[in-house]
């Protein structure tokens, strides 16, 4: 009970609410083809995720920090394993490790590992006029570069961008000279230009990015999906067509709807009100994470919360944005809502970590 008293109830309720919505939307999107089996598995994923969150929450701050190198090592090993013959390729990406009964996406675990590693590395460094020393920047960049490179090798553009967003926000919170930020920005632009002019990106990735720009360029592939999702959300109106009643959803017109495009189920079946609710809850989770980071008295907690907030923010914006036709299509799940064990576990572990930071500052206060 002592742990529960230190919980951040708002964060927990928001994440649980999103998870519950996720189960319902998954159910609706898959009921025509699979009945309730996906909903049941989704519920199981949430339960396991919550259990993991509580376990992380109970960890002593020192134990947690001591475990960081191990977690980072595990994350990197997982990413290496997926590139080995253990990994399997789905939709052009070698991102999964198939185990009997389920499959694991090591990139999700790597997100948690990277957040911890960056927080740990950047928290105990020297500061020169409020900015990180050059050596610390190198260490941080190095820590981020390893998983990033491994993820790009799968290739999994979405996760790579998430990892980048985590690193950027961790550096931003830890303190980085404006000049360095400018360099990083220039580098990002250079990478983007390279991505479209050289074979750095896989063809399917370029297709997806272009389809967001011009859906008609690829009308039977990703452009079809973009157009269908846009129409499904657009036909939701104020209150939607009703759960299990959406024409496009129930007609099975949207591939990968219960994973990357689960937001469109909400848009079509729950309407503007439902979609707005999901946006609000996701943003609440991000802001709540930021608030806990701001309240944290130690740099580790602040940077960890910053990295996690950056992760949730980027993933929410990218996922909802691509559903709304505002962002290029990259395969990132909507935190807590999209179906998928690895993503659900890592998100809930992140909630546990944020809760741990919160509890640590509470304990210190009282």
């Amino acid at each position, binding site marked *: 009970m002592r742990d529960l008293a230190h919980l951040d109830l708002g964060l927990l309720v928001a994440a649980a609410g999103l998870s519950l919505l996720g189960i319902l939307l998954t159910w609706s999107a898959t009921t025509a083809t699979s009945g309730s089996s996906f909903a049941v598995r989704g519920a199981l994923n949430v339960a396991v995720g919550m259990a993991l969150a509580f376990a992380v929450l109970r960890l002593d701050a020192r134990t947690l920090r001591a475990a960081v190198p191990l977690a980072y090592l595990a994350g990197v090993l997982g990413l290496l394993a997926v590139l080995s013959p253990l990994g399997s390729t789905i939709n052009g990406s070698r991102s999964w490790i198939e185990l009997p009964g389920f499959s694991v996406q090591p990139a999700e675990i790597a997100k948690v590992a990277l957040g911890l590693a960056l927080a740990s590395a950047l928290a105990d460094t020297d500061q020169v006029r409020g900015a990180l020393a050059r050596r610390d920047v190198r260490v941080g960049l190095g820590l981020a570069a390893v998983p990033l490179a491994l993820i790009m090798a799968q290739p999994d553009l979405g996760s790579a961008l998430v990892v980048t967003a985590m690193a950027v926000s961790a550096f*931003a919170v830890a303190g980085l000279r404006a000049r360095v930020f400018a360099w990083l920005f220039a580098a990002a632009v250079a990478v983007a230009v390279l991505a479209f002019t050289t074979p750095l990106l896989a063809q399917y990735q370029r297709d997806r990015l272009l389809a967001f720009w011009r859906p008609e360029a690829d009308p039977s592939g990703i452009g079809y999906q973009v157009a269908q999702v846009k129409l499904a959300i657009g036909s939701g109106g*104020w209150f939607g067509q009703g759960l299990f009643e959406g024409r496009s959803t129930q*007609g099975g017109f949207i591939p990968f709807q219960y994973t990357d495009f689960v937001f469109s189920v909400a848009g079509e079946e729950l309407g503007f009100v439902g979609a*707005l609710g999901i*946006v609000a809850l996701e943003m609440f989770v991000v*802001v709540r994470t*930021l608030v806990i980071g701001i309240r944290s008295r130690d740099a580790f907690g602040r940077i960890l919360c910053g990295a996690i907030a950056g992760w949730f923010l980027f993933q929410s914006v990218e996922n909802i944005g691509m559903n709304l*036709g505002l962002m290029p299509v990259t395969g990132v799940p909507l935190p807590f809502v999209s179906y998928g064990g690895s993503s659900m576990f890592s998100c809930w572990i992140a909630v546990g970590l944020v809760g741990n930071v919160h509890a640590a500052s509470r304990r210190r206060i009282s």
Partner: protein
Amino acid sequence: MTRLHRGTPRERRPFGPFLVPSFRGAGSRGGRGTSGRARLLVMALVVALVATVMVGRLVQLQIVDGAENARAAADINTRHVVVPAQRGRILAADGTVLVGNGSTTTLTISPQALARDDAPKLLARVASAIGREPQSLMARTKACGTEGAAPSPVCFAGHPFEPVPIASDVDASAANALLERPEAYPGIAVRPAATRTYGSRGDSLAQVAGYLTAATADDTDVATSGSGVPTLLGRTGVEKQYDAVLRGRDGKRSTAIGPDGTAQRQVADVPPVAGQDVVTSIRPAVQDAAAKALADGIAAARERGQKAGSGSVVVLEANSGNVVAMTNQPTYDPSVWNGGVTQAEYDSLLDTRAADPLTNRAMSVAGPPASTFKAFSLFAAAQTGVDPNGSYSCPSSVMIGNRSYSNFESQAHGTIDIPKALEVSCDTVFYRWAYDAWVKAGGVKASTDAPDPYASVAREFGYGARTGVDLPAEASGSIPDRATKRREWEATKAASCRRAKSGYPEIADKDRASYLTQVAKENCTSGYVVRAGDAVNFAIGQGDVAATPMQVATSFAALATNGRVPTPRVAVATARSDGSARTALASPEARALSLDARMYARELEGLKRAVSTGTASEAFRGFDLDAHAVYGKTGTAEVYGKHATAWFASFGGADEDGKRYVVVVRVDEGGEGGRTAAPIARSVWDALVRRSR
């Protein structure tokens, strides 16, 4: 305890109470902690910004463009297939099926296969496999209006993406043999096509029932199916008039389709509503008798040397105007329309040497009604003061102006009364009456609105206007009075004047040419004048008077009912195919005339005598006129250069159910009415009497 640690007001940031973070001094590393917090706050601002953008986009997609997106979503994800409704049948008065439903096998070729270069070879192979001419298959593949296309309705009138029918009524086993070898016959498919079945009365009712052809792009009020099954529309006759009732409402099956175009799931199913049957007043026995009598009568007339190219019979129930029988010659087998007519079939229907078998001549072709018209001129004469009980001289000819007008075959009958004038069909009596009336009205100097009792009485009985029968394409005939003559003159003046100058050099017969030139001169200068000759010809239904057998029948119905002119009709009710939900169609009001009673009585006597002892007596020899009185009038319409057209109009036959019937026969160029038309009517009367017994 939390409150204690909340920041001081100065340190609060404008995030609202919910998000207010606690700033309690600096952390362990003073300035650095504060700047880290500031950066987290910047991130919170970023959150607010992106949330605004996303919500804005949601508003745009769901609220502003919501309706449009919903429509587009419905369009993009579903395909609609029209499920054709079963067409209603056309039934006889006793429930006998006159036009029913069936199906036939039609071969189609896909547009893709047709677009290939080797399509002609493929069609040739198909043609030889099913024993048809390659040419006939080819002709049907060309879209209507394109180069080399057959004329409508043989050409292809469907959508560009629909399979194109290439052969109908294909032997099922031959068709299946093609299907078994798709590699040799790519794109060839078989589909059942709905057809109409006509039983034994197809030919006799062909023009009355009408026919169906596939809807084309011009039929904008009808959704074409897009499923390769053409929507059939009634084009003539009952099929056209009652198309909306017969057609029913096509169903629609909406199927969700995936990105690859395959059907995924049925999302909506609007079942078709079968068309309703149309119950007509046609009596099969009378119809059959009329058709047989007409065909036999025409054959007999031809044996006598008459041209007898065409003919019609109309039988009405006098009170209601219900059409009991209606048939025409020449006719054709309407089943040629099934599955699409072939070029050869269509050509033969339009053969200009024969009269048009597609036309319902009984109501669509008007001509001079000849002496049958006297039955109405008599009432006009009564209006001008002719005594119904008087006696009148019937010389073989009378001089009107400088021309002599004679009786048929120039017979003289001495001084006769009115019944006798009808019995022997004396023309000269009518010439005198009409001439007197013409003189009284002002002769050639009469103004356009001068009284014309002969024309006005004819109009009262329904001549010069459509009867309103419930069939399309009715002719209105023509009653040329002074007003209409002036209108026509104004329209044709220029042409007449040209002819008056140039003459008729192309006509070899000198007398004829000079006569026509004379007429043209007259028409040029004073064509609007109703001349004495026009007036007297009018009185005996000759000259420019034109009427359809249907008009003659309704006017005789008025004679049968003491002045009630009915609106004839073919359909009396609609019903579901199981006979339920029978709904009577409103019967149109008859128009009541007030007839001169004394003249009416004399007229009835005359019409009776015409049948018993007069011009039609030969035809009615042996008919039990005492039990079934028949009143009739023969007519022989003479047209220059052609054989005379035979008419017989009759009514009577009051039977047990109190019904009276009208039988009208016209045989074009069939010779004398009494000789050619009356015997046909007699056969019909035999059938009517048999029925009533």
